[in-house]
């Protein structure tokens, strides 16, 4: 469910306007003073300060003294929360995200097509989003690798990569890999049923097991040959197969599995398959019927990355409720609210407020669904997701509480650098408007005949 805001051409002046970095703690310490600090890990500190040194949060508390040479930003009672982490996204990628050419495409990698000029990175910042997990599409039972990015707007593709974040493998079950909707995703092909989807994953596991064994045998023989000092002829290596290497990385636990699924029974089914092959399934993507199998999700420690209330766009999305996230969370499932959409990404904080109304989670839990929970799902919770000393200075500043219906994100910071500042944006927009007007108004003739 990818939504594209078409960005055509390079919008020179506008983009450069959005790209300028305004304040950064890289040079000198930065002190954010006098805000409501929603720390996530330690309650909300009213009249709180955050000291940032370099890319990290150095100190959080009340009445922090400004170190020598520090720059100070007065929050004037604004609300600060950890930068929002969107754990299911398809932005900042070049071209289409579905490799439709084959059923299994474990060999392709989103890392190869990161597009740092996608304006959706800027839009992410305007909604307080500082990190995303951008992924392969859902046309394949085993799709390509996904990657976590930080929204360092204006930086290169390589600089967007969230250093040290585990790589992920995107799987998909149900209607999309079945290619069964009226609004089809591609040509008719196997698999056309949920049975076929599961079998195509199973087939790959068996092939990959063989592949792993072949290489292990080869290594063994090669080692023996080397040790024999010429007595045993060195063996020929097996044929390299990038696809099976991708699947082998899943079996070896190198990739964190993120499985797109809607129906509860197919989730249970794939959980059985994963147990059989010793594969760690980290998270169900969407998981719209996850609320029906909370016991099992808790038992096997599988998280759900879902929508607050997006539903009924297809059959497998019909049997769900806006209470799903809350019901899962209240029963101990690790839940993240994600966007899967360049537009929804801009108001995830509004979505979180809906889970308070539907299903009745606490406001604290609703905020966790945007911060520390997705951080855990992405394996980056030691770096981001809370406001604590030692963590990355990824912050979102709002004029009201983030769950207030009338709140506006006013500033977003990644690694101690302000990448979005609404006041500055408004000033620049006004300037651009005036310049445009000046261009249109013809200059008065001097010394004219009238």
């Amino acid at each position, binding site marked *: 469910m990818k939504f594209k*805001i*078409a*960005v*055509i*051409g*390079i*919008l020179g002046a*506008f983009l450069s306007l959005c790209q300028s970095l305004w304040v950064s703690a890289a040079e000198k310490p930065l002190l954010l003073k006098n805000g409501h600090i929603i720390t996530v890990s330690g309650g909300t500190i009213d009249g709180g300060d955050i000291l940032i040194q370099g890319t990290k949060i150095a100190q959080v508390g009340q009445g922090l003294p400004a170190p020598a040479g520090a720059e100070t930003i007065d929050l004037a009672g604004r609300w600060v929360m950890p930068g929002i982490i969107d754990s299911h996204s398809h932005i900042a990628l070049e071209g289409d995200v579905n490799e439709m050419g084959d059923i299994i495409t474990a060999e392709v990698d989103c890392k190869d097509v990161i597009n740092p000029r996608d*304006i959706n990175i*800027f*839009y992410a910042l*305007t909604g307080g989003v500082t990190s995303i997990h951008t992924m392969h599409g859902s046309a394949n039972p085993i799709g390509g690798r996904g990657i976590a990015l930080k929204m360092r707007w204006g930086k290169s593709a390589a600089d967007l990569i969230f250093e040290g974040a585990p790589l992920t493998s995107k799987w998909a079950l149900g*209607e999309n890999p079945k290619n069964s*909707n*009226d*609004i089809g995703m591609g040509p008719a092909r196997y698999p056309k049923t949920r049975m076929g989807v599961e079998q195509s994953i199973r087939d790959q596991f068996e092939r990959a097991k063989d592949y792993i064994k072949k290489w292990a045998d080869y290594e063994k023989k090669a080692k023996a040959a080397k040790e024999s000092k010429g007595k045993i002829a060195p063996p020929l290596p097996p044929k390299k197969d990038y696809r099976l290497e991708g699947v082998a990385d899943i079996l070896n636990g190198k990739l964190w599995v993120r499985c797109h699924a809607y129906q509860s029974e197919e989730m249970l089914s794939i959980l059985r398959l994963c147990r059989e092959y010793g594969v760690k399934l980290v998270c169900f993507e969407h998981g719209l019927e996850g*609320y*029906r199998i*909370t*016991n099992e999700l808790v*038992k096997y420690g599988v998280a759900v990355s879902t929508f607050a*209330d*997006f*539903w*009924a*766009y*297809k*059959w497998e*999305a*019909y*049997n*769900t*409720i*806006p*209470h799903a996230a809350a*019901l899962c969370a209240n*029963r101990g499932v690790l839940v993240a609210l994600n966007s899967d959409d*360049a*537009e*929804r990404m*801009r*108001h995830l904080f*509004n979505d979180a*407020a*809906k889970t*308070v*109304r*539907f*299903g009745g989670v606490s406001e604290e839990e609703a905020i966790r669904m945007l911060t520390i929970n997705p951080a855990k799902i992405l394996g980056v919770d030691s770096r981001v997701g809370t406001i604590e000393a030692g963590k990355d200075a990824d912050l979102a500043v709002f004029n009201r509480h983030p*769950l*207030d*219906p*009338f*709140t*506006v994100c006013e500033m977003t910071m990644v690694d101690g650098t302000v990448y979005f500042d609404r006041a500055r*944006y408004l000033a620049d*927009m006004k300037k651009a408007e005036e310049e445009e007007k000046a261009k249109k108004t013809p200059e008065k003739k001097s010394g004219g005949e009238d």
Partner: protein
Amino acid sequence: MKKSLVIAIACMLLSGALLRSNPEPDRLFIKNATIVPVVGSKIEGGNVLIEDGKIKAVGKEVQPPAGVQVIDASGMFVYPGFIDSYSHFGLVEIAAIASTSDFREMGKENPELRVVWAVNPHSVHFGTGRVTGTTTALIAPSGGTFAGISALLKMDGWTVPEMTFKETATSFINFPMTPRPVGEGVAVQAEAKEDVTSKLVDRIRDYLREARRYQELKKVAADDPAVKAPEYNAKYEALGPVLDGTLPVIVSVEKAKDIELAIKFVQDEKLKAVFRGCAQGFKVADKIKQSGIPVIIDSLYTGPSEPEDGYDAPYRNVVALAKAGVLISFSSGDSPAQGKDLPYHAAKAVAFGLPYDEALKALTINPARIFGVDDRLGSIEVGKDADLIIASGDPLDMKTEVTQLVINGRRIDMSNWWETLYQKFKSRPEK
């Protein structure tokens, strides 16, 4: 004789008892609420008396008649029911399944098609769509140039005729959209090229001209038996009330340049128009105001029409239109599944500077005015339909629960598809 009299009296008594035990009496009394009537000022500790589906009395002093059913709304808030100015409720159940979709007909010119022929009154989306306060919705067809005829439906009823508030609400014209120039440097080139949009508008004008000719010919034939009447044409027939300005027509238009063209088009053709969309309305807000054409705002869960407009253009747009004095109203847009988000679009506009009271009007009295039904809907005033929201707080807040809706003076069953599933799976034992 005596026996039959006894039976008759017994029957009368019994029927009286049955009437008294009827859970939905003709009268309803809402007690001790904070009433936000939209037209008129807020009343703390106010009461509303409802009789025969209408608001009979509003105020602090209003007393409950004997035996009336009372809703104690202490600590609660009462608002007029919201009006969704553009939706496909009942016309599509699941977007990806064509067999559940009935809002878009083949072909470009379908001005004669009526949504009331296709609405499924038992779509789950009526039940889920109203949980945030929508009591009336414009149900719209879409697609092509002339999409058909919308209806205003109350969000409750056993059948479509029962739900129908206004069977013929508006006609539709989807105005052609100027394509955005593709690629670098093409903008200049495209400007120099021919004006594609104006050519497409000319085609609409041609079609309307034919329809007008048809109407005139019919009139002449009616007066003069020597003149042969034109062969019956359902499409031109349907455009009759549009052409004589009695039926409003919703004109979907987004870009600033197209809005200017559309204003001229509407004025030349003497149509009673309502714009829908106007994503770049903020660039020509004064011109829209001058034209007197109201604007139905589309879902605000949308990005800017063009990146240069700025990330917040959709919200700024609403603020600019309202500031210019344009009559605006909100709508939930294309997906009835997201129909419940109607008040949240209003909240988004408030966040970016729309005065709160204006937002509330744009959910109630403004759409009532736009659709010419403000004598019956859009505010809590004596004589109007008793369509009310009873809520725990501000209905623009996602955290607020609408605890009870009243439509046509009746308490609505608030259970719905979501509640059913929620209750069922909440009851699964935890292990």
